[in-house]
């Protein structure tokens, strides 16, 4: 009996060892030789990833589109745009007509040349489908027309100052290739499905990377497009892969195994700290033009009283927020994040000042009957950190005698609540991002009456004066004048205090500092001002990767 | 004896259990029309093999099973209804002791609690009285007071059965069903219990319906014996007469099968009939006389005609075609 027991134990141990060694052999013996597959940038991001410019608009889609397709103009961190597919352009009719002259000889991935017809087709397709980034254009664009092979003209319904900025979201598709892959029985009439099915897993772009493989729910893999008109640095990555998993443990392990170069921005704080400790891994922190707003319902008691709103604004401990809850973030100065072009730097920060808060409260009509007017506050269940914030605000407000009732809500419910004034709570914690990188985008989508009833404006401001100022600013084609007008709107809003701008959000991503050159991380290190539109920080063409340095880390 | 008052009267009692076999519904005829009565102060022995329906009869009488057909009269009241509709007073007056005291006593409760329960339910004792009454009940089954706080597992099988009897006595019943109370016990323990039951019967003027498969035990306990076979009564007679002149071939087979310890007993065993065959399943009761598959005296008519009960002597009834 004891002999058998020993034999079984031995069998178990040997079995385990054989498994370990047998399977481990390959990993350890892997030749320390650089292969071309090693020249790769791998990024994690949330799934799904839509690589169709007519469909995608989220973070992951943007990263894919930026690298697969070209646009007429290309954004700079300072908010300006530079020539890209278009070498130059004319703005005519007081900003109602834009005429672009295309670069000649630019090749699509299949070898076709990029022409004005492709631009016309791309804009029409986007408008017709109505999904993705179409919302940037549907309101203002009246039409588009290819004047000749290399000239294309856009007609606007009314002057729209930041039109050039919004064009970084018009990704140019190869018309012929898309038409060749249309499915007949679609919902777009003679255009069938407008190539939607084919473009789900294929690209028709001219960008620096061409789609090599799409594995649904897993990853998208791109390969360098050697004939890219923009040319190539010798150390530019040969491959680029976007993985659809953001599980902290998976991300961290992959970083440790050097199977991932840049992480997503959705990791918990703890995980960034852990990854920062891995040799050769650094965490890049940069402001991305998003900010967190405490939207106050200006039509509902007690937040309908400006003094009451200001009292709230003066009682919150902003420094505690940016040091312990959202480290790396910056204090907000007014409604527009400081990194966005058109931001007015003269607007002061909100500061915690209890004396001032009490003074404001005394002027409010609710003073003395605060207990009858509790404030309802919703936070977004998908962003768990917001709970700490909500509790902090609750505690701060309690010092003034203001009672806050906190509710956790899924974003879907928050969206539904925002549809009616009665159901919109007194206060809502919401992250806000610009549609295009300019102050006007935030001002329009946040405070113009047209956005009332959507999650982007739960203030229900409905102020004619503000509406007129915003419309006027946006219609101004001249940048300097436009920015001045933006500044006035920001000042006016600061006085109305419809929102408590809690902080400008910092985006965090861990990356392989030792063998990857990433321009955005470099800019963050140097604390350079400005930011790029969503997705452009991951423009792989400008990155560099050094596989031999990677091998040294293994 | 026969002038004593009738306590329990069972008439035409039937109990069928439906079983589903595929699409068909068959009936297990556990009891198929039986008549008997129990008189005051009497012990009626209900004897039969497993599957004869003797326990089912007990459960129908006590109300654990609803009755398919027929009537059960207890002290002149019809109690063929479901247990839940019986008055509490009736439940108090009629008690049952089960075969296996190991499972009929709650192992989590002390003996005190076990006996306390019926007293509480029927509101028979309160406060300090309660303890006194329980001790008194234990004394009546010859268990010392020290047993009050023991658990069933701490005492022997015989003693557990004593506790079960004490619990049954708690409500001062006049009628008790004893469902094979000693069949899982050794003879030395059985002797003690049987003697105690007899003593209690005299003391409290109890009537017993005593269910067993042991005829030699019946000889010493019962005043009247009822033999059941496949849901029907085969023979019924006062004990003395029964053992002197058993009439039914099945009764004779039973008697001849009993292992005995004295020559005297040997004499009493019928010699002509030997045990053969097994009791058929109550789902497939053979046509005619249900004993025909094992009966050494079966005639052709036994395979067609179900016999009726006939009286062959004073208080002696037999259900067999030989006597028709």
């Amino acid at each position: 009996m004891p002999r058998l027991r020993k034999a079984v134990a031995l069998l178990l141990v040997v079995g385990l060892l054989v498994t370990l060694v047998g399977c481990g052999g390959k990993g350890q013996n892997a030749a320390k030789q650089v292969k071309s597959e090693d020249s790769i940038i791998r990024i994690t991001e949330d799934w799904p990833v839509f690589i169709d410019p007519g469909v995608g608009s989220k973070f992951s889609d943007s990263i894919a589109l930026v690298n697969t397709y070209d646009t007429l103009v290309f954004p700079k961190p300072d908010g300006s745009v530079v020539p890209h597919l278009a070498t130059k352009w004319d703005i005519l009719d007081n900003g109602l007509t834009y005429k672009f002259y295309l670069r000649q000889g630019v090749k699509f991935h299949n070898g076709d040349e990029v022409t004005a017809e492709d631009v016309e087709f791309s804009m029409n397709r986007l408008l017709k489908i109505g999904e993705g980034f179409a919302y940037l254009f549907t309101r203002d664009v009246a039409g588009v027309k290819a004047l000749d092979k290399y000239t294309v003209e856009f007609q606007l319904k009314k002057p729209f100052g930041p039109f050039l900025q919004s064009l970084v979201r018009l990704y140019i598709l190869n018309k012929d290739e898309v038409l060749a892959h249309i499915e007949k029985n679609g919902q777009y009439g003679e255009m069938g499905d407008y190539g939607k099915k084919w473009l789900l897993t294929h690209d028709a772009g001219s960008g620096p990377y061409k789609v090599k493989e799409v594995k649904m729910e897993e990853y998208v893999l791109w390969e360098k497009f050697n004939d890219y008109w923009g040319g190539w640095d010798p150390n530019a990555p040969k491959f680029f892969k976007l993985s659809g998993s953001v599980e902290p443990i998976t991300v961290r392990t992959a970083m440790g195994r050097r199977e991932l170069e840049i992480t997503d921005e959705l990791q918990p704080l703890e995980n960034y700290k852990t990854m920062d400790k891995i040799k050769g891994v650094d965490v890049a922190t940069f402001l991305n033009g998003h900010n967190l707003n405490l939207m106050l319902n200006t039509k509902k008691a007690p937040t309908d009283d400006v003094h009451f709103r200001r009292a709230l604004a003066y009682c919150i401990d902003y420094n505690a927020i940016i040091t312990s809850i959202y480290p790396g973030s910056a204090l907000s100065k007014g409604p527009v994040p400081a990194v966005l072009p058109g931001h007015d730097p003269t607007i002061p920060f909100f500061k915690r000042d209890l004396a001032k808060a009490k003074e404001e409260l005394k002027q409010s009509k609710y003073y003395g009957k605060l207990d009858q007017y509790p404030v309802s506050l919703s936070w977004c269940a998908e962003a768990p950190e917001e709970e700490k914030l909500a509790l902090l605000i609750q505690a701060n407000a309690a010092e003034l005698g203001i009672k806050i009732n906190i509710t956790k809500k899924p974003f879907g419910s928050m969206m539904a609540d925002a549809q009616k004034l009665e159901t919109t709570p007194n206060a809502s914690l919401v992250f806000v991002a610009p549609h295009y990188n300019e102050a006007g985008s935030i001002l329009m989508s946040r405070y113009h009456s047209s956005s009332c009833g959507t999650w982007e404006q739960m203030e229900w401001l409905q102020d004619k004066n503000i509406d007129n100022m915003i419309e006027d600013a946006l219609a101004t084609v001249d940048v300097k004048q436009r920015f001045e007008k933006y500044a006035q709107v920001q000042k006016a809003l600061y006085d109305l205090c419809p929102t408590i701008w809690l902080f400008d959000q910092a985006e965090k991503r861990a990356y392989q500092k030792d063998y990857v050159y990433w321009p955005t991380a470099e800019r963050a290190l140097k604390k350079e001002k400005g930011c790029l539109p969503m997705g452009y920080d991951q423009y792989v063409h400008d990155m560099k990767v050094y596989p031999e340095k990677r091998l040294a880390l293994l | 004896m026969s002038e004593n008052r009738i306590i329990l009267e069972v008439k035409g009692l039937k109990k069928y259990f439906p079983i589903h076999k595929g699409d068909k519904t068959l009936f297990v005829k556990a009891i198929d029309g039986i008549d008997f009565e129990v008189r005051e102060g009497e012990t009626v022995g209900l004897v039969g093999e497993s599957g004869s329906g003797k326990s089912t009869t007990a459960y129908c009488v006590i109300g654990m099973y609803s009755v398919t057909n027929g009537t059960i009269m207890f002290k002149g009241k019809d109690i063929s209804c479901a247990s839940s509709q019986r008055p509490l007073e009736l439940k108090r007056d009629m008690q049952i002791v089960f075969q296996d005291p190991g499972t009929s006593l709650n192992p989590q409760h002390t003996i005190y609690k076990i006996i306390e329960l019926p007293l509480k339910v029927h509101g028979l004792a309160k406060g300090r009285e309660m303890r006194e009454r329980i001790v008194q009940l234990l004394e009546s089954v010859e268990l010392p007071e020290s047993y009050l706080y023991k658990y069933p597992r701490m005492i022997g099988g015989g003693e557990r059965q004593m506790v079960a009897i004490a619990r049954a006595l708690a409500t001062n019943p006049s009628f008790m069903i004893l469902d094979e109370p000693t069949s899982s016990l050794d003879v030395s323990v059985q002797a003690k219990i049987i003697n105690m039951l007899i003593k209690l019967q005299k003391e409290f003027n109890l009537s017993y319906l005593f269910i067993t498969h042991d005829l030699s035990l019946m000889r010493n306990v019962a005043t009247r014996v009822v033999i059941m076979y496949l849901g029907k009564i085969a023979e019924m007679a006062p004990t003395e007469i029964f053992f002197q002149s058993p009439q039914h071939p099945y009764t004779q087979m039973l008697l001849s099968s009993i292992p005995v310890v004295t020559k005297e007993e040997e004499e009493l065993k019928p010699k002509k009939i030997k045990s053969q065959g097994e009791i058929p399943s109550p789902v497939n009761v053979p046509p005619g006389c249900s004993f025909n598959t094992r009966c050494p005296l079966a005639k052709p008519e036994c395979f067609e005609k179900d016999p009726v009960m006939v009286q062959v002597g004073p208080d002696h009834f037999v259900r067999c075609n030989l006597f028709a």
Partner: protein
Amino acid sequence: MGINLLKRIGLSIFVLFGLSILIFIISRVVPGDPARLALGPRAPEWAVQKLRQEMHLDKPLYTQYVLWLDGLVHGDLGRSLVTRRSVTTDIKEFLPATLEIVILSAIVLVFGGIFLGIISAKFTNSWLDGLIRVISYLGIVSPAFVWAIIFVLIFGYNIPIFPTMGRLSPGVVPPPMITGMYTVDSLITGNFGTFVDAFKHLVLPAIALAMGGMAQAARITRSSMLDNMGKDYIAAEKAYGIPEGLIFVKYLLKPSLIPTVSVASLDIAALFGNAFLVELIFNYPGFSRYGISAMLNKDLNAIAGVIMVLGVIFVTINIIIDFIVAYLDPRIGLAGR
């Protein structure tokens, strides 16, 4: 047996029909506008409206059900809002991936569990038994995703011998689609290298997934073997001189496996649910992950499709296990005949 099987299948279809109504109603009644969720908060209302029409969301519920059922009968489960493809296509792609894990996991669960249980019972109260029992306790109390995390850390990070992401290593070409299961397809096409690679990707997720059920099976096998060891028939078989080894592996094992198999069947069915977090951690594009992402995105057709397929799988597993139990335990098998 044949008639019994047909009967069971007939009954199952009835059950699945009921299930289809239930899941359809549940999937449609959950709050939130699926079209809005699919197109994002900034999409213009007309585009959302168009999608609603396309999905028949503007029609009454029963019309929607009839249309959906009609599609179901024709093998068309509608279009997924997340992948923007036909749900049928998605299922064809993701189901084999998860089946691969679940099948391997079930094998580990059943055979591993029984093996450990036998060892434990054979050497009752030895250190080996103690070790197995401790592992079993851990296996039962820790959910599959905890094991997944532990395995990723140990075998992916500290001792990096197994891949921790995806179904194949980069650069390995997937085998041609036959069953959709990479390991099977690569073997069919004779591509052994791909098989090894695909198999290595399965090892950690499958074991992580199997741990709980395996521990359960081990415990049940152990206790039921110990229980049966005390039975008279084992004493009788010993008394008749049947070798102890044979008694152990044949006469003792078979009756002892009945409870194990019944419980294992539930555990195997539960694997599909537990697979979700495991697939997430191993970035494995499987059916469970697809199902959960469908629910999070209120991807109606995908939800209904996934539950429908799971329903069919559960019912099938149930039938299979019932027949295995009937084989092991003649009392059940014959009662059913």
